[in-house]
Protein backbone atom coordinates (compact mmCIF):
# COMPACT_ATOMS: atom_id res chain seq x y z
CA UNK A 1 0.00 0.00 0.00
CA UNK A 2 1.01 3.55 -0.35
CA UNK A 3 -0.20 6.09 2.10
CA UNK A 4 0.37 9.51 0.73
CA UNK A 5 0.96 12.76 2.50
CA UNK A 6 1.15 11.27 5.94
CA UNK A 7 2.45 14.39 7.65
CA UNK A 8 1.23 17.42 5.80
CA UNK A 9 3.80 20.21 5.67
CA UNK A 10 3.77 22.62 8.53
CA UNK A 11 2.37 26.04 7.66
CA UNK A 12 0.09 25.60 4.69
CA UNK A 13 -0.94 22.18 5.88
CA UNK A 14 -4.59 21.28 5.74
CA UNK A 15 -6.06 19.97 8.99
CA UNK A 16 -4.64 16.61 9.95
CA UNK A 17 -7.02 13.74 9.97
CA UNK A 18 -4.93 11.50 12.17
CA UNK A 19 -3.63 8.05 11.52
CA UNK A 20 -5.30 6.10 8.78
CA UNK A 21 -5.64 3.13 11.11
CA UNK A 22 -7.70 5.24 13.50
CA UNK A 23 -9.94 6.29 10.67
CA UNK A 24 -10.41 2.72 9.59
CA UNK A 25 -11.18 1.53 13.11
CA UNK A 26 -14.20 3.80 13.12
CA UNK A 27 -15.37 2.19 9.92
CA UNK A 28 -15.92 3.61 6.46
CA UNK A 29 -19.19 4.37 4.71
CA UNK A 30 -18.50 1.44 2.43
CA UNK A 31 -16.09 -1.47 2.62
CA UNK A 32 -12.86 -1.13 0.67
CA UNK A 33 -13.36 -4.65 -0.56
CA UNK A 34 -15.36 -7.61 0.58
CA UNK A 35 -15.51 -11.35 0.32
CA UNK A 36 -18.49 -12.86 -1.38
CA UNK A 37 -19.01 -16.59 -1.14
CA UNK A 38 -21.21 -17.27 -4.17
CA UNK A 39 -22.15 -20.83 -3.31
CA UNK A 40 -21.75 -23.40 -0.59
CA UNK A 41 -21.56 -26.08 -3.29
CA UNK A 42 -18.12 -27.58 -3.74
CA UNK A 43 -16.58 -30.52 -5.57
CA UNK A 44 -14.02 -30.89 -2.78
CA UNK A 45 -14.46 -31.25 0.95
CA UNK A 46 -11.27 -29.86 2.44
CA UNK A 47 -10.92 -30.74 6.09
CA UNK A 48 -10.25 -27.11 7.04
CA UNK A 49 -12.92 -25.41 4.92
CA UNK A 50 -13.69 -22.12 6.63
CA UNK A 51 -17.24 -22.06 5.28
CA UNK A 52 -18.02 -25.77 5.91
CA UNK A 53 -18.98 -26.02 2.25
CA UNK A 54 -20.22 -28.99 0.28
CA UNK A 55 -23.92 -28.87 -0.50
CA UNK A 56 -25.64 -26.07 -2.34
CA UNK A 57 -28.02 -24.13 -0.13
CA UNK A 58 -31.50 -24.10 -1.65
CA UNK A 59 -31.87 -20.46 -0.65
CA UNK A 60 -28.82 -19.48 -2.72
CA UNK A 61 -29.18 -16.02 -4.24
CA UNK A 62 -30.50 -15.91 -7.80
CA UNK A 63 -28.65 -14.35 -10.68
CA UNK A 64 -30.87 -11.29 -10.47
CA UNK A 65 -30.31 -10.92 -6.73
CA UNK A 66 -26.56 -11.14 -7.27
CA UNK A 67 -26.71 -8.50 -9.97
CA UNK A 68 -28.60 -6.13 -7.75
CA UNK A 69 -25.92 -6.57 -5.07
CA UNK A 70 -23.31 -5.71 -7.69
CA UNK A 71 -25.33 -2.59 -8.56
CA UNK A 72 -25.21 -1.59 -4.91
CA UNK A 73 -21.48 -2.24 -4.69
CA UNK A 74 -20.97 -0.05 -7.72
CA UNK A 75 -22.97 2.77 -6.15
CA UNK A 76 -20.95 2.43 -2.95
CA UNK A 77 -17.70 2.36 -4.93
CA UNK A 78 -16.56 -0.93 -3.54
CA UNK A 79 -13.59 -1.38 -5.83
CA UNK A 80 -13.39 -5.14 -5.88
CA UNK A 81 -14.82 -8.32 -4.48
CA UNK A 82 -13.02 -11.47 -3.48
CA UNK A 83 -15.28 -14.19 -4.77
CA UNK A 84 -15.13 -17.59 -3.18
CA UNK A 85 -17.34 -20.38 -1.95
CA UNK A 86 -17.61 -23.33 -1.94
CA UNK A 87 -16.30 -23.55 -5.44
CA UNK A 88 -17.70 -20.43 -7.13
CA UNK A 89 -17.09 -21.61 -10.69
CA UNK A 90 -19.64 -24.40 -10.35
CA UNK A 91 -22.44 -21.85 -10.39
CA UNK A 92 -23.88 -21.92 -13.90
CA UNK A 93 -24.08 -18.11 -13.95
CA UNK A 94 -20.55 -17.61 -12.61
CA UNK A 95 -19.08 -16.03 -15.76
CA UNK A 96 -22.18 -13.97 -16.30
CA UNK A 97 -21.76 -12.50 -12.80
CA UNK A 98 -18.03 -11.93 -13.25
CA UNK A 99 -18.73 -10.05 -16.48
CA UNK A 100 -21.55 -8.10 -14.89
CA UNK A 101 -19.31 -7.03 -12.01
CA UNK A 102 -16.40 -5.93 -14.16
CA UNK A 103 -18.76 -4.06 -16.50
CA UNK A 104 -19.99 -2.18 -13.45
CA UNK A 105 -16.61 -1.07 -12.09
CA UNK A 106 -16.44 -3.82 -9.50
CA UNK A 107 -13.21 -5.72 -9.97
CA UNK A 108 -13.15 -9.45 -9.30
CA UNK A 109 -10.63 -11.68 -7.64
CA UNK A 110 -11.88 -15.20 -7.33
CA UNK A 111 -10.59 -18.23 -5.48
CA UNK A 112 -10.91 -21.63 -7.06
CA UNK A 113 -9.60 -25.13 -6.66
CA UNK A 114 -9.09 -25.10 -10.41
CA UNK A 115 -11.82 -27.53 -11.39
CA UNK A 116 -13.15 -25.39 -14.24
CA UNK A 117 -9.94 -23.70 -15.34
CA UNK A 118 -9.50 -25.56 -18.61
CA UNK A 119 -7.67 -24.17 -21.65
CA UNK A 120 -10.70 -22.31 -22.89
CA UNK A 121 -11.46 -20.63 -19.59
CA UNK A 122 -7.80 -19.78 -19.12
CA UNK A 123 -7.77 -18.00 -22.49
CA UNK A 124 -10.88 -16.08 -21.55
CA UNK A 125 -9.34 -15.01 -18.25
CA UNK A 126 -6.14 -13.95 -19.93
CA UNK A 127 -8.20 -11.57 -22.05
CA UNK A 128 -9.56 -9.63 -19.09
CA UNK A 129 -7.82 -6.87 -17.21
CA UNK A 130 -10.26 -6.88 -14.38
CA UNK A 131 -10.22 -10.44 -13.15
CA UNK A 132 -7.64 -11.92 -10.83
CA UNK A 133 -7.43 -15.63 -10.15
CA UNK A 134 -6.33 -17.37 -7.00
CA UNK A 135 -5.70 -21.11 -7.04
CA UNK A 136 -5.85 -22.83 -3.67
CA UNK A 137 -3.11 -25.28 -2.82
CA UNK A 138 -2.20 -26.48 0.65
CA UNK A 139 0.80 -28.60 -0.08
CA UNK A 140 3.73 -28.20 -2.49
CA UNK A 141 3.47 -31.92 -3.11
CA UNK A 142 0.42 -34.05 -3.85
CA UNK A 143 1.01 -36.03 -0.70
CA UNK A 144 0.80 -33.05 1.64
CA UNK A 145 -1.88 -31.22 -0.32
CA UNK A 146 -4.24 -34.10 -0.94
CA UNK A 147 -4.22 -35.13 2.71
CA UNK A 148 -6.06 -31.89 3.45
CA UNK A 149 -7.85 -31.04 0.21
CA UNK A 150 -8.65 -34.54 -1.05
CA UNK A 151 -7.32 -37.02 -3.62
CA UNK A 152 -6.52 -35.52 -7.03
CA UNK A 153 -6.79 -31.92 -5.85
CA UNK A 154 -3.08 -31.22 -6.27
CA UNK A 155 -3.07 -32.39 -9.88
CA UNK A 156 -6.22 -30.37 -10.56
CA UNK A 157 -4.72 -27.17 -9.19
CA UNK A 158 -1.44 -27.61 -11.04
CA UNK A 159 -3.31 -28.27 -14.29
CA UNK A 160 -5.19 -25.00 -13.78
CA UNK A 161 -1.91 -23.17 -13.21
CA UNK A 162 -0.46 -24.71 -16.35
CA UNK A 163 -3.50 -23.70 -18.39
CA UNK A 164 -3.37 -20.14 -17.10
CA UNK A 165 0.33 -19.86 -17.74
CA UNK A 166 0.06 -21.26 -21.26
CA UNK A 167 -2.82 -18.92 -22.07
CA UNK A 168 -0.66 -15.96 -21.11
CA UNK A 169 -2.50 -15.09 -17.91
CA UNK A 170 -0.01 -13.11 -15.88
CA UNK A 171 0.40 -13.13 -12.16
CA UNK A 172 -2.14 -15.66 -10.95
CA UNK A 173 -1.99 -16.23 -7.22
CA UNK A 174 -1.21 -19.51 -5.51
CA UNK A 175 -3.05 -19.37 -2.24
CA UNK A 176 -1.66 -21.46 0.58
CA UNK A 177 -2.97 -21.87 4.10
CA UNK A 178 0.08 -22.48 6.27
CA UNK A 179 -0.17 -25.65 8.35
CA UNK A 180 2.04 -27.78 10.55
CA UNK A 181 2.42 -30.13 7.56
CA UNK A 182 3.36 -27.61 4.86
CA UNK A 183 5.30 -24.94 6.75
CA UNK A 184 8.53 -26.66 5.70
CA UNK A 185 7.55 -26.34 2.04
CA UNK A 186 7.51 -22.55 1.77
CA UNK A 187 10.53 -22.50 -0.53
CA UNK A 188 8.93 -25.17 -2.70
CA UNK A 189 5.70 -23.18 -2.91
CA UNK A 190 7.71 -20.16 -3.98
CA UNK A 191 9.45 -22.20 -6.66
CA UNK A 192 6.11 -23.52 -7.87
CA UNK A 193 4.75 -19.97 -8.13
CA UNK A 194 7.85 -18.86 -10.00
CA UNK A 195 7.49 -21.76 -12.43
CA UNK A 196 4.03 -20.58 -13.49
CA UNK A 197 4.68 -16.84 -13.39
CA UNK A 198 2.39 -16.67 -10.38
CA UNK A 199 2.61 -14.92 -7.04
CA UNK A 200 2.66 -16.87 -3.81
CA UNK A 201 0.09 -15.89 -1.23
CA UNK A 202 0.26 -17.51 2.19
CA UNK A 203 -2.32 -17.02 4.90
CA UNK A 204 -3.04 -18.12 8.40
CA UNK A 205 -5.06 -21.23 9.20
CA UNK A 206 -8.15 -20.10 11.06
CA UNK A 207 -10.10 -22.51 13.23
CA UNK A 208 -13.29 -21.51 11.39
CA UNK A 209 -15.84 -23.75 9.70
CA UNK A 210 -14.70 -27.36 9.51
CA UNK A 211 -11.24 -26.30 10.66
CA UNK A 212 -12.65 -26.06 14.16
CA UNK A 213 -12.31 -29.86 14.23
CA UNK A 214 -8.77 -30.12 12.88
CA UNK A 215 -7.11 -26.93 14.02
CA UNK A 216 -5.42 -28.59 17.00
CA UNK A 217 -3.58 -30.94 14.64
CA UNK A 218 -3.02 -28.60 11.71
CA UNK A 219 -2.01 -25.26 13.15
CA UNK A 220 1.73 -24.56 13.20
CA UNK A 221 3.58 -25.20 16.46
CA UNK A 222 5.19 -22.36 18.34
CA UNK A 223 8.60 -23.22 16.85
CA UNK A 224 7.06 -23.32 13.38
CA UNK A 225 5.48 -19.92 13.91
CA UNK A 226 8.90 -18.46 14.56
CA UNK A 227 10.21 -20.27 11.50
CA UNK A 228 7.36 -18.77 9.49
CA UNK A 229 8.05 -15.32 10.85
CA UNK A 230 11.71 -15.61 9.95
CA UNK A 231 10.88 -16.87 6.49
CA UNK A 232 8.57 -13.90 5.96
CA UNK A 233 11.22 -11.46 7.13
CA UNK A 234 13.74 -13.03 4.74
CA UNK A 235 11.45 -13.68 1.76
CA UNK A 236 8.38 -11.55 2.41
CA UNK A 237 9.10 -9.26 -0.48
CA UNK A 238 6.94 -10.42 -3.33
CA UNK A 239 4.90 -12.81 -1.20
CA UNK A 240 1.34 -11.83 -0.30
CA UNK A 241 -0.02 -12.57 3.15
CA UNK A 242 -3.30 -10.70 3.37
CA UNK A 243 -1.81 -9.20 6.52
CA UNK A 244 -2.96 -12.39 8.17
CA UNK A 245 0.16 -12.98 10.27
CA UNK A 246 0.09 -9.78 12.26
CA UNK A 247 0.03 -11.86 15.42
CA UNK A 248 3.60 -12.90 14.59
CA UNK A 249 4.81 -9.32 14.74
CA UNK A 250 5.50 -9.69 18.45
CA UNK A 251 8.44 -11.93 17.47
CA UNK A 252 10.05 -8.73 16.29
CA UNK A 253 10.03 -7.13 19.73
CA UNK A 254 7.72 -4.82 21.59
CA UNK A 255 8.93 -1.68 19.84
CA UNK A 256 7.19 -2.78 16.67
CA UNK A 257 10.46 -2.67 14.73
CA UNK A 258 10.08 -6.26 13.60
CA UNK A 259 6.47 -5.92 12.54
CA UNK A 260 5.49 -7.47 9.27
CA UNK A 261 4.25 -5.07 6.62
CA UNK A 262 0.54 -4.39 6.75
CA UNK A 263 -2.03 -2.25 8.40
CA UNK A 264 -2.26 -4.18 11.68
CA UNK A 265 -5.90 -3.60 12.16
CA UNK A 266 -8.90 -5.86 12.29
CA UNK A 267 -11.06 -4.73 9.41
CA UNK A 268 -14.04 -6.85 10.36
CA UNK A 269 -17.23 -4.85 9.92
CA UNK A 270 -15.16 -1.70 9.51
CA UNK A 271 -13.51 -1.91 6.11
CA UNK A 272 -14.26 -5.51 5.12
CA UNK A 273 -17.04 -8.06 5.56
CA UNK A 274 -18.43 -11.24 4.06
CA UNK A 275 -21.56 -11.87 2.01
CA UNK A 276 -22.55 -15.53 2.08
CA UNK A 277 -24.38 -17.47 -0.65
CA UNK A 278 -27.83 -16.80 0.81
CA UNK A 279 -27.23 -13.08 1.27
CA UNK A 280 -26.30 -13.10 4.94
CA UNK A 281 -23.63 -10.58 5.87
CA UNK A 282 -20.94 -11.54 8.38
CA UNK A 283 -18.19 -9.43 9.93
CA UNK A 284 -15.38 -11.25 8.18
CA UNK A 285 -14.71 -14.32 6.03
CA UNK A 286 -13.57 -16.29 9.05
CA UNK A 287 -16.62 -15.66 11.12
CA UNK A 288 -19.50 -17.52 9.53
CA UNK A 289 -21.40 -17.98 12.76
CA UNK A 290 -24.60 -16.52 14.17
CA UNK A 291 -22.58 -14.47 16.64
CA UNK A 292 -21.00 -12.52 13.81
CA UNK A 293 -24.08 -12.22 11.63
CA UNK A 294 -24.80 -8.58 10.84
CA UNK A 295 -27.97 -9.04 8.84
CA UNK A 296 -29.45 -10.23 5.59
CA UNK A 297 -29.31 -8.47 2.27
CA UNK A 298 -32.58 -10.14 1.35
CA UNK A 299 -34.63 -9.20 4.39
CA UNK A 300 -32.85 -6.15 5.81
CA UNK A 301 -33.14 -3.75 2.92
CA UNK A 302 -30.02 -4.49 0.91
CA UNK A 303 -26.29 -4.50 1.48
CA UNK A 304 -25.76 -0.80 2.10
CA UNK A 305 -28.41 -0.85 4.78
CA UNK A 306 -26.81 -3.79 6.57
CA UNK A 307 -23.37 -2.23 6.30
CA UNK A 308 -24.54 1.06 7.76
CA UNK A 309 -27.14 0.00 10.29
CA UNK A 310 -26.15 -3.39 11.63
CA UNK A 311 -25.94 -3.32 15.38
CA UNK A 312 -22.97 -5.69 15.31
CA UNK A 313 -21.04 -3.49 12.88
CA UNK A 314 -21.81 -0.42 14.92
CA UNK A 315 -20.37 -2.16 17.98
CA UNK A 316 -17.27 -3.18 16.05
CA UNK A 317 -16.70 0.44 15.08
CA UNK A 318 -16.68 1.55 18.71
CA UNK A 319 -13.41 1.74 20.64
CA UNK A 320 -12.57 -1.71 22.00
CA UNK A 321 -10.91 -2.60 25.25
CA UNK A 322 -7.79 -4.72 25.27
CA UNK A 323 -8.98 -6.84 28.19
CA UNK A 324 -6.45 -9.33 29.51
CA UNK A 325 -3.93 -8.21 26.90
CA UNK A 326 -3.88 -4.56 27.92
CA UNK A 327 -0.94 -5.01 30.30
CA UNK A 328 1.16 -6.88 27.73
CA UNK A 329 4.05 -4.86 26.38
CA UNK A 330 3.55 -6.47 22.99
CA UNK A 331 -0.05 -5.38 22.67
CA UNK A 332 0.73 -2.69 20.13
CA UNK A 333 2.36 -5.31 17.93
CA UNK A 334 -0.42 -7.86 17.86
CA UNK A 335 -3.39 -5.98 19.30
CA UNK A 336 -4.81 -9.11 20.82
CA UNK A 337 -4.78 -11.22 17.71
CA UNK A 338 -7.66 -12.49 15.63
CA UNK A 339 -11.24 -12.32 16.82
CA UNK A 340 -12.30 -15.39 14.83
CA UNK A 341 -9.31 -17.46 15.98
CA UNK A 342 -10.22 -16.82 19.60
CA UNK A 343 -13.90 -17.43 19.15
CA UNK A 344 -13.59 -20.74 17.34
CA UNK A 345 -11.04 -22.12 19.78
CA UNK A 346 -13.35 -21.29 22.66
CA UNK A 347 -11.07 -18.63 24.13
CA UNK A 348 -12.39 -15.44 25.68
CA UNK A 349 -12.73 -12.58 23.24
CA UNK A 350 -10.86 -10.18 25.49
CA UNK A 351 -7.86 -12.45 26.01
CA UNK A 352 -4.87 -13.55 23.97
CA UNK A 353 -4.94 -15.09 20.53
CA UNK A 354 -4.62 -18.91 20.63
CA UNK A 355 -1.33 -18.55 18.77
CA UNK A 356 -0.02 -15.67 20.88
CA UNK A 357 3.73 -15.78 20.33
CA UNK A 358 4.34 -14.83 23.94
CA UNK A 359 2.79 -18.15 24.90
CA UNK A 360 -0.27 -16.64 26.60
CA UNK A 361 -2.54 -18.47 24.19
CA UNK A 362 -1.05 -21.84 24.98
CA UNK A 363 -1.97 -21.70 28.64
CA UNK A 364 -5.45 -20.51 27.71
CA UNK A 365 -5.83 -23.48 25.36
CA UNK A 366 -4.81 -25.85 28.11
CA UNK A 367 -7.47 -24.53 30.45
CA UNK A 368 -11.11 -25.59 30.30
CA UNK A 369 -12.69 -24.37 27.13
CA UNK A 370 -15.63 -25.21 24.99
CA UNK A 371 -15.37 -24.95 21.25
CA UNK A 372 -18.48 -23.32 19.80
CA UNK A 373 -20.68 -25.48 17.65
CA UNK A 374 -20.99 -24.45 14.04
CA UNK A 375 -24.24 -22.72 13.27
CA UNK A 376 -23.85 -22.80 9.50
CA UNK A 377 -22.82 -26.14 8.02
CA UNK A 378 -23.19 -27.33 4.44
CA UNK A 379 -20.80 -30.29 4.64
CA UNK A 380 -21.81 -33.12 2.33
CA UNK A 381 -20.46 -35.73 4.69
CA UNK A 382 -22.33 -34.47 7.69
CA UNK A 383 -19.01 -34.67 9.42
CA UNK A 384 -19.59 -31.60 11.48
CA UNK A 385 -22.66 -33.24 12.95
CA UNK A 386 -20.51 -36.00 14.45
CA UNK A 387 -17.88 -33.76 15.85
CA UNK A 388 -16.17 -34.87 18.96
CA UNK A 389 -16.89 -31.78 20.99
CA UNK A 390 -20.42 -31.86 22.27
CA UNK A 391 -22.75 -29.07 21.39
CA UNK A 392 -22.12 -26.20 23.72
CA UNK A 393 -23.47 -22.75 24.29
CA UNK A 394 -21.42 -20.12 22.56
CA UNK A 395 -19.84 -17.44 24.66
CA UNK A 396 -21.98 -14.38 24.23
CA UNK A 397 -19.63 -11.73 25.48
CA UNK A 398 -18.90 -10.68 21.96
CA UNK A 399 -16.50 -7.82 21.40
CA UNK A 400 -15.50 -6.79 24.79
CA UNK A 401 -12.00 -6.75 23.44
CA UNK A 402 -10.26 -5.28 20.48
CA UNK A 403 -11.08 -7.04 17.29
CA UNK A 404 -7.98 -8.61 16.16
CA UNK A 405 -6.34 -7.91 12.98
CA UNK A 406 -6.94 -7.69 9.47
CA UNK A 407 -7.92 -10.85 8.03
CA UNK A 408 -7.33 -12.74 4.93
CA UNK A 409 -9.13 -10.19 2.88
CA UNK A 410 -7.19 -7.23 4.04
CA UNK A 411 -7.71 -4.64 1.36
CA UNK A 412 -4.06 -3.82 1.65
CA UNK A 413 -2.96 -7.29 0.87
CA UNK A 414 0.03 -7.09 -1.35
CA UNK A 415 0.66 -3.40 -1.02
Amino acid at each position, binding site marked *: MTSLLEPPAAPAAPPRVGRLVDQFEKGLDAPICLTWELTYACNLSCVHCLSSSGKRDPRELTTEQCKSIIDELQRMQVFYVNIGGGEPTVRSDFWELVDYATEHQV*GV*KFSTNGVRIDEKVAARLAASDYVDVQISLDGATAEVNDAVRGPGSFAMAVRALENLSEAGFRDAKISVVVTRQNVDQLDEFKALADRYGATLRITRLRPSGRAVDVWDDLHPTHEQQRQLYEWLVAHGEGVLTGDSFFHLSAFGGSDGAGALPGLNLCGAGRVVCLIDPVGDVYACPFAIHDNFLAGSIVTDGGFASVWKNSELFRELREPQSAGACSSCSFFDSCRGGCMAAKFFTGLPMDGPDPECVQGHGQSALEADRTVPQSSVDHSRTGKRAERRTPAAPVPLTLLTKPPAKFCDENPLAGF
Partner: protein
Amino acid sequence: MTAPGAIDVSPEKKSTDTFDPGATWRLHPQVALRPEPFGALLYHFGTRKLSFLKNTVIVDVVRSLGDHESVRAALRAHGVDETAERPYLHALRTLADSHMIVPA
Protein backbone atom coordinates in the same frame (compact mmCIF):
# COMPACT_ATOMS: atom_id res chain seq x y z
CA MET B 1 -11.16 -4.92 -21.42
CA THR B 2 -8.04 -4.56 -23.49
CA ALA B 3 -5.72 -6.89 -25.27
CA PRO B 4 -5.14 -10.36 -23.86
CA GLY B 5 -2.82 -10.35 -20.92
CA ALA B 6 -2.38 -6.60 -21.09
CA ILE B 7 -2.23 -6.16 -17.39
CA ASP B 8 -0.24 -3.07 -16.75
CA VAL B 9 1.80 -4.34 -13.86
CA SER B 10 5.49 -3.93 -13.59
CA PRO B 11 6.97 -5.84 -10.67
CA GLU B 12 9.88 -3.47 -10.38
CA LYS B 13 9.31 0.20 -9.71
CA LYS B 14 9.30 2.33 -12.79
CA SER B 15 11.86 5.09 -12.86
CA THR B 16 10.77 8.37 -11.38
CA ASP B 17 12.63 10.38 -13.99
CA THR B 18 9.52 10.85 -16.01
CA PHE B 19 7.57 12.85 -13.45
CA ASP B 20 7.69 16.45 -14.58
CA PRO B 21 5.73 18.88 -12.40
CA GLY B 22 5.91 21.37 -15.22
CA ALA B 23 3.72 19.18 -17.42
CA THR B 24 0.05 18.28 -17.35
CA TRP B 25 -0.91 15.04 -15.68
CA ARG B 26 -4.22 13.35 -15.05
CA LEU B 27 -5.70 10.32 -13.32
CA HIS B 28 -5.12 7.10 -15.22
CA PRO B 29 -8.37 6.19 -16.98
CA GLN B 30 -8.47 2.89 -15.08
CA VAL B 31 -8.22 4.58 -11.70
CA ALA B 32 -11.25 5.20 -9.51
CA LEU B 33 -11.25 7.78 -6.73
CA ARG B 34 -13.54 7.36 -3.74
CA PRO B 35 -13.85 10.39 -1.46
CA GLU B 36 -13.56 9.68 2.26
CA PRO B 37 -13.66 11.93 5.33
CA PHE B 38 -9.87 11.60 5.64
CA GLY B 39 -9.17 12.21 1.96
CA ALA B 40 -9.77 9.53 -0.62
CA LEU B 41 -9.11 5.99 -1.70
CA LEU B 42 -7.61 5.41 -5.11
CA TYR B 43 -7.89 2.08 -6.85
CA HIS B 44 -6.21 1.11 -10.10
CA PHE B 45 -8.23 -1.56 -11.86
CA GLY B 46 -5.32 -2.47 -14.09
CA THR B 47 -2.63 -2.96 -11.48
CA ARG B 48 -5.10 -3.71 -8.66
CA LYS B 49 -3.20 -1.33 -6.42
CA LEU B 50 -4.80 0.72 -3.71
CA SER B 51 -3.56 4.07 -2.47
CA PHE B 52 -4.76 6.50 0.14
CA LEU B 53 -4.79 10.24 -0.12
CA LYS B 54 -4.59 11.52 3.40
CA ASN B 55 -5.94 15.02 3.13
CA THR B 56 -8.60 16.76 1.16
CA VAL B 57 -6.31 19.28 -0.53
CA ILE B 58 -4.32 16.59 -2.31
CA VAL B 59 -7.63 15.01 -3.34
CA ASP B 60 -8.76 18.24 -4.98
CA VAL B 61 -5.36 18.68 -6.61
CA VAL B 62 -5.38 15.15 -8.03
CA ARG B 63 -8.90 15.52 -9.36
CA SER B 64 -8.10 18.78 -11.12
CA LEU B 65 -4.67 17.87 -12.53
CA GLY B 66 -5.99 17.50 -16.05
CA ASP B 67 -7.53 20.96 -16.00
CA HIS B 68 -4.24 22.72 -15.44
CA GLU B 69 -1.29 23.30 -17.69
CA SER B 70 1.06 21.89 -15.11
CA VAL B 71 1.15 20.12 -11.79
CA ARG B 72 2.47 23.30 -10.20
CA ALA B 73 -0.41 25.31 -11.61
CA ALA B 74 -2.84 22.82 -10.09
CA LEU B 75 -1.09 23.18 -6.73
CA ARG B 76 -1.20 26.99 -6.86
CA ALA B 77 -4.88 26.88 -7.75
CA HIS B 78 -5.47 25.04 -4.51
CA GLY B 79 -3.46 27.39 -2.36
CA VAL B 80 -0.27 25.36 -2.19
CA ASP B 81 2.61 27.76 -2.72
CA GLU B 82 6.23 27.02 -3.40
CA THR B 83 7.17 26.79 0.25
CA ALA B 84 4.55 24.12 0.89
CA GLU B 85 4.70 22.13 -2.29
CA ARG B 86 7.35 19.58 -1.39
CA PRO B 87 5.20 16.95 0.27
CA TYR B 88 2.61 17.35 -2.45
CA LEU B 89 5.15 16.84 -5.21
CA HIS B 90 6.46 13.83 -3.35
CA ALA B 91 2.96 12.37 -3.13
CA LEU B 92 2.27 13.04 -6.79
CA ARG B 93 5.57 11.51 -7.80
CA THR B 94 4.61 8.39 -5.87
CA LEU B 95 1.30 8.31 -7.70
CA ALA B 96 3.15 8.66 -11.00
CA ASP B 97 5.47 5.80 -10.09
CA SER B 98 2.49 3.51 -9.53
CA HIS B 99 0.74 4.74 -12.69
CA MET B 100 -2.14 6.20 -10.73
CA ILE B 101 -1.55 9.43 -12.63
CA VAL B 102 -0.23 9.63 -16.17
CA PRO B 103 0.92 12.40 -18.50
CA ALA B 104 -2.11 14.02 -20.10
